[in-house]
């Protein structure tokens, strides 16, 4: 299935490029979430709970950036494979960020 099939229409990478940009954009949006999540940790009365959750959010963001980078590299193949695990992992890390954000709101 990695073989370019007979009906493979080359589109000179336009859709792969758009997809790559979409991955980058998504990782950048996640950056906003992480900045907001880290903000309370810089409060003078912030406790270790906030520090740890903010650090975990940062780790989650690193994971998202790494996944986006990995997928963007995989898109360089022609024709690119449909995404698989990176996509699922991305969704689950996003859910994890939501859960951590919930902890930050409660603390």
């Amino acid at each position, binding site marked *: 299935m990695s073989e370019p099939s007979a009906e493979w229409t080359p589109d000179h990478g336009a859709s792969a490029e758009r997809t790559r940009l979409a991955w980058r954009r998504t990782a950048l949006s*996640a950056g906003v979430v992480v900045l*907001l999540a880290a903000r309370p940790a810089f409060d003078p009365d912030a406790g270790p709970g906030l520090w740890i959750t903010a650090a975990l959010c940062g780790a989650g963001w690193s994971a998202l950036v790494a996944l986006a980078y990995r997928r963007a590299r995989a898109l360089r193949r022609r024709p690119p494979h*449909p995404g698989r*695990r990176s996509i699922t992992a991305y969704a689950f890390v*996003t*859910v994890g960020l939501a859960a951590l954000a919930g902890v*930050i709101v409660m603390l």
Partner: protein
Amino acid sequence: MFGGLRQWIDPEKTPTVGRTPDYRFSLANERTFLAWIRTGLALIAGGLGCAQFLPPLPIAYLREVIAVALLVLGGLVALRAVDHWARTERAMRLGEELPGSRFPAFLAVIVALGALLLIVAVLLQSPR
């Protein structure tokens, strides 16, 4: 939703009868997924922003409730995004009709209700 759980992890394995669709359709499906993820991330950012930047509202804990509701909605959007992506991928492989979804309408109604709630809260606060 959970019948397709294996498909989330390996959508290429499950439908052995199917064939790899035109990669441009797969990539379009992937971009739709990413757009939904961005929607979810925006909701999460909104939840964090509510908790950090709203003044205490007239109803006790309303601010926290709104924030947590937005966060839950954001997580739900991300889960639904991966489910919808996997089902679309599968439908494309099998040459079936693409799956429809009521989720966008549901999300719109929930967000509109939340906005109404906030308007009520602001109106309650302003006479002071």
